[in-house]
């Protein structure tokens, strides 16, 4: 269903976006999301779109791939658009249709709101894709740990959250492979995963799920022992091989983005 989804994928590279500090990338992403929801004219979105295009150009990412990444979420975008078109009132009536649930009217204001929401969603997907495509999962979790560390005083286990995230990310391909293997092994014994009603199908999954859980627990156990054998005892006093360091280019990116957004907002776009 989500084949071709670019959010969460990583394409190694050497572009300016790849080498930027991941913390700055996350902060700028959050900032852009806020701006995205403050803009409410088409001109503003076109300007923002041009900015995205420039950023993608500098990141050396294949633009085709990013556009393809929108496709799996097309249904959600279309659904949002249609819902907004129907439910928002105001402006000229574009379409009026009697249905068994009552009369549905599509008014111009609704189409506006709907297209804004659709554009916002598409832009969200694009920037989230650009972030994960240019940032390795390790850098991403490192950055999240740093950004969460001020909340440690409030009892947020920043290091543990980041560690869990990186372990989870690390084991996704492993478990996918394992699932595939167990599925094949049970198929070879005549198991059937494709037919039957929902209850039958759920029951047919038992020969897949139990070995999968067993192996996940075994791996977790082995990993815990291996980590302990290397003296892991949480984030306290832990040093890093690669220290995150903000560079001139990071501050430059921040200044560029903030001034660009201020201009857009001051112009009332």
């Amino acid at each position: 269903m989500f084949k071709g989804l670019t959010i969460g994928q990583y394409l190694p590279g050497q572009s300016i976006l790849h080498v930027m500090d991941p913390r700055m990338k996350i902060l700028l992403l959050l900032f852009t999301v806020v701006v995205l929801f403050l803009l409410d004219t088409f001109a503003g979105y076109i300007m923002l779109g041009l900015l995205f295009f420039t950023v993608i150009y500098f990141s050396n990412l294949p633009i085709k791939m990013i556009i393809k990444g929108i496709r799996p979420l097309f249904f959600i975008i279309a659904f949002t658009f249609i819902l907004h078109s129907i439910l928002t009132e105001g402006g000229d009536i574009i379409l009026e249709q009697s249905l068994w649930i009552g009369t549905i009217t599509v008014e111009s204001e609704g189409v506006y709101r709907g297209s804004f929401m659709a554009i916002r969603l598409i832009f969200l997907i694009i920037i989230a894709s650009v972030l994960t495509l240019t940032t390795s999962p390790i850098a991403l979790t490192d950055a999240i740990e740093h950004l969460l560390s001020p909340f440690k005083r409030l009892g947020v286990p920043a290091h543990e959250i980041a560690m869990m995230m990186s372990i989870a990310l690390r084991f996704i391909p492993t478990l996918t492979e394992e699932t595939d293997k167990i599925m094949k092994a049970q198929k070879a014994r005549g198991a059937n995963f494709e037919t039957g009603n929902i209850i039958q199908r759920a029951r047919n999954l038992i020969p897949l799920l139990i070995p999968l859980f067993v192996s996940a627990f075994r791996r977790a156990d082995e990993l815990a022992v291996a980590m302990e054998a290397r003296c892991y005892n949480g984030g306290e006093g832990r040093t890093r091989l690669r220290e995150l360091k903000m560079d001139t280019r990071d501050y430059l990116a921040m200044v560029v983005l903030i001034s660009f957004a201020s201009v857009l907002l001051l112009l009332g776009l």
Partner: protein
Amino acid sequence: MLIECKDLTHVYMPGSPMSHKALDEVNLTIDKGEFVGIIGQTGSGKSTLIQHFNGLLLPTSGDVLIQGKSTQGDKKSLKDIREKVGLVFQYPEHQLFEETVAKDVEFGPKNLGLSQEEVGERTRYALEKVGLSYEELKDRSPFELSGGQMRRVAIAGVLAIKPEVLVLDEPTAGLDPRGKQDILDKMLRLHREQGITVILVSHSMDDIAKYSDKIMVMHQGRLKISGDVKEVFARLKDIEELGLNAPKITLLMYRLREKGFDVPYDVFTVEEAKEHLLPHLKKGKLKKSGSDFYV
């Protein structure tokens, strides 16, 4: 002809940047009652090849025929093929899932829709063939057994389907030497007593040479060398070029022969070698043309 591959080519993830040709126009035939060894380095396509034998993978191009029937037919014929060709994956104990050993072994025969009586009979048969006691283990949880026992239960789970062909992918990986030999001996007995065709995939030249009648050498997705054991090892140079080696005992015989000793080099098991070498040792010296070596 039991299994036939015609120009079998398999490409993983075709059309994507990660596209990878795992099998490249493989042609082979396996006849009923053979014990075939498939050997090759990691990534040579062995595992991909055997998954075509029961239709778990389908050819990208070419065809695989099981008793003349293509694996690319309808669901019904695929079911028949999986009943005929039993496949034991690497580390098969990772597929165990039931509460008791007996229930786990029953999974296969139950999927065939056999009567309860027949299912029970086959379970007992399969467990005994792998050297486990049905009475002792039937109510135990498979997860509390030893590694070697789990492996045997998992193999029994495939044997209970009573396949005509048993495909074993590295069945002894991670076992101790005694467990290794014991499992392979059990498979050889099945082959001899029940006439089951066995296809053994292994890294170990020594095992392959000891048990198989016929050897197939895979290299980078192609079937490079194929023939009976003697034919294949007669091409020692070719085998070495593919990054593989003859069994250690064969290498020893080669070396002795190079030094001029009168011993045959087509010897693949230690037992056989013993017969050839012992007479020389009894005489207290090895005959070499020209001079004598004392041992």
